């Protein structure tokens, strides 16, 4: 079954992430794919994440297919204009890539080519409309395509954005623009996430809650202070502190597993997206502890 079919079947889905490396040595990346294969329902392939130049997400998405994984091709609007985006979408389509995640993309000032000209010719809402158009046989200018795409398109949302209202307005615009599923920014407060879900459930879209494993209390504080839309509650920071240095990572994995289990048991959302960020080998263990394997 494809990611779309699994998601629509009502099964609680799990997606993970594969970060393309900087350079042509893909041994470690292939190892990560091997670990995730058969365990997760799909893998997101990031698109020059944090505006750091790496292998393109299309090539790695194709590699994932070849290795027996289903990719979610992440596409940002930072590096390509509307011609480039549409052309790459058609290219991805003929390579067998079925899922696309439409995002705005981190600004070039966050990355390793700070002098680059950021593009943003279109943005995430408009990119979703573009995908919808290509799926219906038309390019953005209304020209007829010789063969249309068949993408299952998704988007991202930050349930703990502050202020939340403008974020929710954009969420609705993304739904109207054709987003079928959403993967969220990392969440750490299930009660707050439930509030977001109460709103999100008004719309016919699937929601996958995002997870980033906490490795230490220091990391939690760093996320709180530096990463937009992430809020680790003090009670979790205390839990990590109490665990001590040796056990902090294990405790962080337990927290993630516990949260995932709660989301699944209470049927709060449709699945989870685990962003391991270099700890892909830990994903199966987290899934096991969450009762998903």
């Amino acid at each position, binding site marked *: 079954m494809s990611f779309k079919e699994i998601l629509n079947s009502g099964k609680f889905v799990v997606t993970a992430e594969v970060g393309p490396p900087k350079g042509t040595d893909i041994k470690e990346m292939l190892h990560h794919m091997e670990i995730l294969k058969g365990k997760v329902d799909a893998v997101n392939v990031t698109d020059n994440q944090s505006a750091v130049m790496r292998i393109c997400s299309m090539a790695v998405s194709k590699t994932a297919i070849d290795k027996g994984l289903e990719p979610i091709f992440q596409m940002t*609007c*930072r590096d390509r204009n*509307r011609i480039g985006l549409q052309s790459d979408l058609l290219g991805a389509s003929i390579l067998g890539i079925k899922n696309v995640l439409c*995002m*705005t993309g*981190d*600004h070039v*000032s*966050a990355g390793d080519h700070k002098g680059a000209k*950021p593009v*943003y*010719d*279109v*943005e*995430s*809402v*408009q990119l979703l*409309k573009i995908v919808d158009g290509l799926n219906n046989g038309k390019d*953005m200018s209304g020209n007829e395509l010789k063969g249309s795409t068949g993408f299952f398109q998704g988007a*991202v949302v*930050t349930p703990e*954005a*502050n*202020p939340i*209202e*403008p*974020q929710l*307005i*954009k969420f*609705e*615009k993304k739904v*109207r*623009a054709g987003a079928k599923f959403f993967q969220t*920014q990392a969440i750490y407060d299930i009660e707050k996430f439930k509030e977001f879900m109460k709103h999100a459930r008004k719309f016919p879209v699937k929601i996958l809650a995002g997870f980033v494993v906490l490795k230490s209390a220091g990391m939690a504080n760093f996320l709180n202070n530096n*990463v*937009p*839309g992430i809020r680790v509650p003090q009670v979790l920071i205390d839990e990590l502190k109490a665990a001590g240095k040796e056990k902090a990572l294990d405790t962080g994995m337990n927290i993630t597993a516990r949260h995932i289990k709660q989301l699944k048991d209470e049927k709060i959302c449709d699945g989870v997206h685990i962003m391991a960020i270099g700890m892909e080998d830990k994903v199966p263990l987290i899934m096991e502890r969450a009762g998903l394997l």
Partner: protein
Amino acid sequence: MIITKKRDFKELMENVKNYRNFFLIGCSECATLCGTGGEPELKAMKEALEAEGKSVTGTFVAKTGCQVLGTKVELKPFKEALDKTDCIIVMSCGAGTQTAVDLYEDKAVFASNDSLFLGNMTRLQFFDERCSLCGKCILDKTGGICPITACPKGLLNGPCGGCKDGHCEISPDIKCAWVRIYERMKKLDKLQELCEVTLEAKDWSASQKPRTLVAREEKKK
């Protein structure tokens, strides 16, 4: 106004090292307000050039340096000083510099300033970029705040995931343009409009360079 910033003097001297006699042109409009091309700055430049052993044959602050014909007329009385110069330094914006390029085909022309943006002066010599001159205004859809300019990504349909506590991901000094738009639309009781309208991708052909405009109606013969 066009916001300008003085270029490094050493860099300018390197550019003009082969010239001896200079004429300085400032501008009474934006460059004067920016403190880059008014009377005091021309005087300081004259002294700095002379300290480098150069000669300054004349200085003049144009009324509106980007107005080619007007500046041409204004410069007529300076013919003698201009004849004696081999290099003109324009102390206004890139447009003012190119007025001199138009008027003096056989003379070297250098800019003493970098032209930065179209901005508003919010306090004395504090400047903010407000308009990108995109060619097709969308202010009527965004509560009068331009996201093409105020948002580093120029987003048209709401904030990105980089908005942190109402501030921009690229700097905590920048307030998120879309939070500003949201707050203003709320005050104007127009939130429903903000929710309902998805702005289409912008037609950038309106900013296709180089742009020209003939605003006057030609007299019918």
